[in-house]
């Protein structure tokens, strides 16, 4: 018995001429969070829809919680929760009724359904609005109800498609804590997001999609190390010293980036010991440095590099 909760191999999906997914493979071990990154239209939602049996796949195969999404959709659906990119709650019902309805459809008794619903309303800070119709909820409240709805059945695998879009910072932090708690309890999470900070904080592993293909996969640290770029940011004491400093840096083999007339410049570097070489070059040029800092690569750098490459 494998402990892969999501195992997709060579999955493809086309909409007419658009190849939304083209041979995507993805493996998510039990109790971990995988972040799915990618530009608009990269295929994130499509992949989530295939794995949650909302859409049939064209080619390849996938299992979720050990069940084949094509042949055993019913079993897959009884083990997952999905918060889609667009809210999927019934606006004509109250928040409470929405959750009770789902619990009942999952086989809970009236009593169990009511208990679970109030538990989740509490967790997502919606208890006060429990008896209000959802069409009176704010955007963020609807989003939170949608998230609660996907957790009603204590799913083994939770799919979150841009879960924090439209949430205020407090709710966003709250959601992150809830996700961390779920994972502590053994739940597996696949999360798509446009917030790299979110992926950095939550995801054990990250997969970057571009134009329907996986262009990078690994932990955040691995991606940063492999693809990201360390930079040294320098602010000179005087802008007049810039030309000479730039020349010295170029002689030392660096490619500094500088806007004419400014005191600041950025130097992409590879190794940690490059910092010493930068300082030496500046010393040779007799340039007085007001400020110097080494920047570790961020996921934003990784993302921009990857999506830039793919677009080129």
């Amino acid at each position: 018995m494998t402990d892969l909760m999501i195992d997709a191999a060579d999955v493809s999906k086309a909409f007419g001429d658009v190849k939304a997914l083209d041979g995507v493979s993805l493996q998510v071990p039990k109790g971990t969070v995988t972040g799915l990154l990618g530009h608009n239209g990269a295929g994130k939602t499509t992949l989530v829809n295939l794995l949650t049996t909302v859409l049939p796949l064209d080619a390849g195969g996938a299992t979720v919680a050990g069940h084949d999404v094509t042949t055993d959709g019913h079993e897959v659906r009884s083990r997952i929760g999905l918060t889609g990119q667009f809210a999927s709650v019934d606006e004509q019902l109250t928040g409470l009724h929405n959750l009770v309805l789902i619990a009942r459809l999952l086989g809970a008794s009236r009593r169990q359904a009511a208990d679970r619903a109030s538990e989740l309303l509490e967790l997502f800070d919606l208890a006060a609005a429990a008896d209000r119709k959802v069409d009176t909820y704010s955007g963020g409240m609807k989003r939170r109800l949608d998230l609660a709805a996907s957790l009603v059945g204590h799913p083994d695998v939770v799919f979150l498609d841009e879960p924090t879009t439209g949430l205020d910072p407090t709710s966003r932090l709250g959601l992150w804590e809830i996700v961390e708690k779920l994972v502590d309890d053994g739940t597996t999470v696949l999360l798509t997001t446009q917030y790299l900070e979110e992926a950095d904080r939550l995801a054990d592993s990250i997969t970057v999609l571009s134009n329907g293909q996986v262009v990078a996969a690994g932990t955040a640290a691995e991606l940063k190390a492999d693809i990201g770029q360390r930079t040294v940011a320098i602010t000179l004491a005087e802008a007049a010293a810039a030309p000479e400093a730039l020349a010295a840096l170029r002689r030392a083999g660096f490619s500094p980036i500088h806007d004419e007339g400014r005191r600041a410049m950025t130097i992409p570097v590879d190794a940690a010991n490059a910092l010493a070489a930068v300082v030496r070059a500046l010393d040779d040029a007799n340039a007085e440095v007001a400020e110097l800092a080494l920047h570790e690569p961020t996921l934003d750098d990784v993302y921009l590099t990857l999506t830039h490459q793919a677009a080129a």
Partner: protein
Amino acid sequence: MTVATTTPQTNAAPPAAAARDWGGSSYPSQIWVLTGRSMQALKDKRMLIMSVVQPLIMLTLFSQVFKGMAFAPGFPQGVDYIDYLMPAILVTTGSQSAMWAGAGLATDLKNGALARFRTLPISMYSLLTARSVFDAVRNTIQLSLLLVGAVVLFGFNPAGGVFGTLAALLLALIVGWGLSWLFMALGTWVRNLEVMQMIGMVAVFPLMFASNAFAPVESMPGWLQAIASVNPLSYAIDGSRSLALGDLDAGPILWALLISGIIASGGALAAGRGIRKP
């Protein structure tokens, strides 16, 4: 969702209680729960009242405008026009209301409620059946109120008596129920409330007038006679009328039931496919 709270009790997912421990739900209970959900719509009495007022207005207008029909060729001897008209109004009102099943489904599909159901381990046919059950219940209430209105306001009192009238009502309900599957199939493809309402108007109105609803077929010009005599609504109206007027004629009743059955099956197949489209 409070950030700084450290309430350790908030147990997001006790691993012991996964959804499968609730065991899933049977088809009957899915249909029961989903029908209950639709019933919420009845809390808004305005819709129901309007749905009764509209046919009552039609009844008023037609019973005055077409009174002369009682002397038209083919009109049954010694029958009040209201007794002739009302069974037809039951059928046409039931058919028009069938549109609401499709409209409700289209709204669900559009606003995301259905997106949630798609991710649950339930049958899409439970959902469709629940809609049609709800539609039948709403239709029963609507047509019963209409019937009471016709008796009280217009002195509807057909020769078939209470039983004949109730049988006519039942036939109208069955015809409407069959059509509701057709409209649900349309709803899964159209997915737009306004467009559904337009289709309901455009499809049902001509069928209604090109039928024997308001006047005997014999009184119509030839081309209209041709349409009216193949119009399935004419069978339903003939059947309903024969029951209400106590002049039992099994032919049109059986045809109406058969056609409704065919429409319902075809609609169910198409709706079952349509609802799966993302």
